[in-house]
């Protein structure tokens, strides 16, 4: 049935979203999908609100020619975080901390990431972190205070953050999956929140069909995100595909992040989604971190993707 004015696509709703989401999104609406967002310097310097950092896909243990030293590039990423002009409130790691879920890989990652001084690091698992079968290697380290197979939520500065696990319940032939228990929990978790509450969603695999042929999506994302439709601003941060990709749909903005370890090809540009071989001198152009600056009220949220080469 044709609906001429879906609430999600109303002009008022779009303006509200833009006001909160900042110039980067405005740029997207006026000029198509950008490769990077506006610089965050001005917004961060304004004083109010806070900044957090997203890093992803460190794959500690990976040792292929494209990057034989993934610990070095993770260390560089940590140094970038520590050198940011505005101290972030926290860091989120959106999964694939390790390559093979080996205890020594988790230990190496923890040793490097503890150099992020004085601020918490929040994690969600990637499928490479659950190769032991029952997820205990991951949960023993990062599962404290979480529910189910490792999901949870927290609040900071008026923003509600949902940290989800869409990599623990795969079905043959399927994409990522949150599962009924987690979706039911999500529904309850946000039930008492005002629709003005900015929502940030973390999950390893994209929560939109970024490229289903390579498995880059989540089968039950539409149902889960349906419970967030009433919120004025929902920012979804994923990893998994080792490149920056974004999509804006109504009040939702979806963003995948660079890896700290190695790039993957753009959708459909290679026979499969394996590591993208790039010249050693160019590797750091493809790796990086993301800063997200949140301004309460009418202030902008600005996403800045920085490569390790910048």
């Amino acid at each position: 049935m044709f609906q001429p004015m879906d609430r999600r696509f109303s002009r008022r709703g779009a303006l509200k979203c833009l006001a909160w989401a900042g110039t980067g999104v405005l740029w997207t609406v006026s000029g198509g999908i950008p490769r990077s967002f506006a610089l965050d310097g001005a917004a961060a310097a304004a004083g109010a609100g806070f900044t957090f950092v997203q890093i992803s896909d460190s794959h500690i243990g990976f040792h292929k020619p494209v990057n034989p030293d993934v610990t070095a590039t993770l260390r560089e990423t940590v140094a970038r975080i520590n050198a940011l002009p505005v101290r972030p409130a926290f860091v989120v790691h959106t999964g694939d901390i390790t390559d093979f879920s080996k205890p020594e890989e988790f230990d190496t990652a923890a040793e490097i990431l503890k150099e992020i001084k004085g601020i918490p690091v929040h994690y969600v698992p990637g499928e490479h972190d659950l190769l032991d079968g029952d997820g205990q290697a991951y949960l023993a380290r990062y599962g404290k205070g979480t529910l189910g197979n490792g999901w949870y939520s927290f609040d900071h500065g008026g923003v509600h953050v949902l940290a989800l696990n869409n990599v623990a319940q795969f079905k043959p032939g399927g994409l990522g999956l949150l599962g009924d228990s987690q979706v039911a929990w999500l529904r309850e978790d946000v039930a008492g929140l005002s629709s003005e509450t900015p929502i940030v969603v973390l999950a390893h695999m994209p929560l939109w069909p970024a490229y289903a042929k390579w498995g880059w999506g989540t089968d039950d994302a539409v149902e889960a995100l349906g419970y967030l439709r009433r919120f004025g601003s929902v920012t979804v941060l994923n990893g998994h595909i080792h490149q920056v990709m974004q999509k804006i749909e109504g009040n939702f903005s979806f963003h995948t992040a660079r890896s700290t370890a190695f790039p993957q090809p753009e959708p459909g540009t290679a026979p499969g989604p394996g590591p993208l071989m790039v010249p050693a001198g160019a590797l750091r152009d493809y790796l990086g971190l993301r800063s997200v600056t949140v301004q309460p009220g009418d202030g902008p949220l600005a996403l800045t993707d920085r490569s390790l080469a910048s």
Partner: protein
Amino acid sequence: MLINLNLDLRLKYTAVLAAAAFWTAAGMTPALAADADVVIDNFAFVPATVTIAAGEAVTWTNHDDTPHQVLASDKSFRSPGLDTGEHYRLVFAKPGTYGYYCSLHPYMVGTVIVH
């Protein structure tokens, strides 16, 4: 549709799997000429379907630059994470149809038919 089909298979063959015995160490069973090989290439099991006789083995070898892990659709067998060039050998003692997938990339699926 696919999921329903696999669910049916799972129900049908649970009893068979429960009674089956698996050996994974190469030295524990005699080498048989009819054993099947599956290579993992560009995020696909090739060939996607192999047919063997009861008591024969399937060997999966990872040719990709990324890890893969063979996991039975009903979770009755699971390889270790396979790095580039590593292989996993499994003897199927009982007749049946065994669906499997990659636990890291579930869109990669395959079938072992055991007569």
